[in-house]
């Protein structure tokens, strides 16, 4: 049952690429707008082999990783604390409910003014985008921990820390993983997006630099690289999430 769907998806992508290829070769899409897909693939291959973009890739990857780890740690800790303190949680509830309606990128200029045009504003944007998703999903997971587990913990006289580590967090793990998956995507979006708007380096910067210099041979391969990277990361995490949920019989 699973195989055919994958094949269909592959066929859809292949068809899209084929249409683009034909449109480019026949000149319906001119060279200034877009390169033919096979040229993009060739340029991407060359770019990766020569390592021309390795610096930019490393910079983006490092910043994404930092902002993801920050969002995950702060998110889970905040979630655990808020779960204990009903009042605080109720007060923050309106913030969580409207948080993703606010364009977080609008804070980027402000962060640049405060921290200067370096890595910090980019990391903070990725962090701000991701952290609330982790908090909300951690709370959701903790809400669903069966009461029998906390009772067992009390019977076994576990300390608070032991209860959290060996009972509550594992039980809430599938939901927390959903938040973590979002945090990865958001960290990537935040870092690339802010690099793209204004920065001094990274893949997003290279794309915008190539755009201003009409350098399609650099721009398109980089865009394809980012799309492939984010689809791959997201796919892997979804797979892991489904496994974890499946083991609990939740899906």
């Amino acid at each position: 049952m699973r195989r055919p769907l994958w094949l269909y998806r592959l066929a859809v992508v292949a068809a899209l690429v084929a249409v683009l290829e034909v449109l480019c070769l026949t000149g319906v899409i001119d060279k200034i707008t877009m390169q033919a897909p096979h040229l993009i693939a060739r340029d991407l291959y060359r770019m990766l082999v020569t390592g021309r973009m390795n610096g930019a890739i490393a910079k983006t990857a490092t910043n994404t990783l930092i902002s993801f780890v920050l969002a995950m740690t702060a998110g889970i800790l905040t979630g655990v604390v808020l779960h204990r303190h009903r009042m605080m949680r109720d007060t923050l509830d309106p913030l969580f409910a409207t948080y993703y309606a606010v364009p977080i990128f609008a804070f980027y200029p402000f962060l640049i003014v405060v921290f200067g045009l370096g890595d910090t504003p980019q990391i903070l944007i990725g962090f701000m985008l991701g952290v609330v998703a982790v908090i909300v999903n951690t709370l959701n997971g903790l809400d669903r921990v069966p009461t029998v587990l906390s009772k067992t913990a009390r019977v076994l006289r576990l300390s608070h820390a032991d209860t959290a580590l060996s009972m509550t967090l594992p039980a809430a793990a599938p939901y927390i993983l959903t938040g973590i998956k979002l945090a990865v995507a958001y960290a990537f979006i935040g870092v690339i997006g802010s690099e793209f708007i204004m920065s001094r380096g990274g893949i997003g910067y290279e794309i915008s630099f190539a755009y201003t210099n009409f350098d399609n041979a650099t721009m398109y391969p980089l865009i394809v690289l980012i799309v492939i990277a984010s689809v791959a990361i997201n796919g892997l995490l979804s797979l892991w999430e489904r496994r974890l949920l499946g083991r609990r019989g939740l899906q």
Partner: protein
Amino acid sequence: MNSHLRGFVNALVLIVALVAIWQALYWWIGDSALASPLATVRYTAKLVRGESFEMHLFDTLRAFAIAFALSVVIGLAVGFWLGFEKLSGDVLEPMIVAAYAIPKVTLYPILLLAFGLGLSAKVVFGAIHGVIPIILFTLAAVRNTKPILIKAGRAQRLSRGQMVRWILFPAAVPEIFTGLRVGFSLTLIGSLLAEMFASQRGLGFLLMNGIGLHNVELIMSVTLLIVVFAASVSSLLLYVDHRLHRRT
């Protein structure tokens, strides 16, 4: 009603707390990088009355409105189609979910090359953001329609158009509204992002211009306006959303 009142009080406490944190940060960091809440509000009042502000605001709102209209029309059409056609839905839904996680900013140069620097590129970029949640929520809503309703429609020999008009759409309204709410926010984000990257007008341009001028008050005022607008519209939509969901 009581829960609404409590929500209102919570929101009020939250706003007071946020302003207090802002003021504390101002005392801590100082004038050079931060404007105090009072100064920002004062500057905002002056900014809003200024002559060029209306032009920027109108430009952003126009792009946003067209983009959102496009998102709704395309999103509902595609959502209903994918909800109906089981195979297409199964094949395409995960692909659309994956598209949500792509940093779409990187696609913006392609739109600029295809449409030129101007309104259409901004509109398309906003619509790309907004259309995804509308498709996904509509699709889910159509799929989750109670089978008995669809059977009733079949028994009446409704055509596909009539089925949508009289059965699927009314049953799916709460879910679809959630999609529209999320789509609204994402379209706004998309339109602003587009303006922040490359444009000569609009609120996003005003923000980036503030960096060049090193005008902290301008940056904070525009950010404040955007945040207040987004948060209040979204709270309103959220309120309607809850009411719709409770009715069913």
